[in-house]
């Protein structure tokens, strides 16, 4: 946490007002520090929603029935709408929406590493809905509840409601695949094996390593990264245990929290889709892995930008 003595008086004044319940409504209410933290938060939020669309779209082709494919394409439609909400708010803060979508290189998007990975079968698609969308709603419900930025709080009502449906789609299909047993359940287990640690990483740096969070100071969110991870596990660990699917985490009754059964974090083999629990990484190394981007980064961005470039060319 930044020492309050080193903060500019205007920054400290805004932080104090926010702590007292002040709701920021326009740019005039903001300090440079607040605006910068808000823009970063909205870019991560919008890019995450945007990049889920090509990932889910490709996987929708593995849907086992027309109704389940329609369900996934409707989810893709929702996600694009959610990205538009974040980008639309960014426009009010002076960021060009067209540049956000079409003007950036693949590695410049700020979505999590999980959305650089291919979803290659129906089990991975529904675990993405069950895990990734659960992460999305965990993060966004916290923002919705705590954010000091009024326009975002209001916009998130619709987003939260739609994410609940995605989650429901994912979890009901996970239960169904587990009940089917045999190879179907094995495919579900394989998906969970790489996607569970992938989602935990998504919440970012552990609290004991985090020195400063503008997002918390400006109350752009309410819970810390570790608290959000616990919230996510409180839903996903019992879900998986209830359907006979193993996860590398368990409830520790003495500590009254979920505990991971592997080094957090560690190396990931993106080609084999396998976590190497015997190769722990520092968080510096994790950030390097994220920055190098995953196997689908360029293809997903090209799917989003390619049609527009084709239209320009003609």
């Amino acid at each position: 946490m930044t020492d309050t003595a080193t903060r500019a008086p205007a920054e400290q004044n805004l932080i104090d007002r926010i702590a007292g319940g002040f709701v920021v409504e326009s740019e005039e209410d903001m300090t440079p520090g607040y605006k910068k933290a808000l823009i970063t938060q909205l870019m991560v939020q919008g890019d995450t929603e945007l990049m889920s669309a090509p990932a889910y779209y490709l996987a929708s082709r593995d849907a086992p029935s027309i109704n389940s494919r329609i369900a996934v394409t409707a989810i893709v439609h929702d996600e694009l709408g959610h990205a538009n909400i974040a980008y639309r708010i960014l426009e009010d803060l002076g960021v060009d929406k067209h540049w956000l979508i079409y003007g950036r290189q693949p590695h410049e998007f700020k979505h999590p590493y999980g959305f650089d990975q291919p979803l290659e079968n129906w089990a991975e698609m529904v675990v993405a809905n069950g895990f990734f969308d659960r992460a999305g709603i965990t993060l966004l419900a916290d923002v919705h509840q705590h954010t000091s930025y009024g326009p975002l709080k209001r916009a998130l009502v619709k987003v939260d409601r739609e994410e609940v449906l995605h989650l429901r789609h994912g979890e009901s299909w996970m239960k169904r695949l587990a009940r089917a047993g045999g190879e179907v359940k094995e495919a579900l287990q394989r998906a969970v094996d790489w996607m569970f640690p992938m989602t935990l990483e998504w919440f970012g740096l552990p609290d004991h390593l985090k020195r400063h969070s503008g997002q918390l100071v400006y109350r752009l969110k309410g819970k810390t990264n570790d608290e959000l991870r616990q919230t996510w596990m409180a839903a996903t660990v019992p879900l998986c245990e209830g359907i006979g699917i193993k996860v590398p985490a368990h409830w520790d009754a003495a500590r009254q929290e979920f505990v991971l059964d592997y080094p957090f974090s560690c190396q990931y083999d993106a080609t084999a889709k396998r976590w190497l629990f015997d190769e722990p990484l520092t968080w510096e190394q994790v950030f390097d892995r994220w920055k190098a981007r995953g196997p689908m980064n360029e293809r997903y961005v090209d799917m989003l930008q390619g049609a527009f470039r084709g239209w320009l060319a003609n």
Partner: protein
Amino acid sequence: MAGSPTDAEVWAALRSVTDPEYPLSIVDLGMVYGVRVAEAGVHVDMTFTSIGCPAIDMLVHDVREAVSALPGVARVDVDVVWDPPWTKDCISDRGRRVLAMYGVVC
């Protein structure tokens, strides 16, 4: 049919199944076309507001769960039918009032 639910009890159970977007039951939306209670189980005829509705699987599942929870129901058959086609005229007066409160004109 000792132990089977009455038609009214089945309709009441169906009122607990809500649309994923609006705070309105599928009964008020006019999506339930008929209920038959027989020795073998309960049969529900229902439709959807569009053939491309992404929530078909989900709502059929919800209907099964709601009706199965009634005492004496061993089996639930849900038939998705498209005739007559659903229009907004199928929405009940109560449904219209609720939707109006949420700013939806129909």
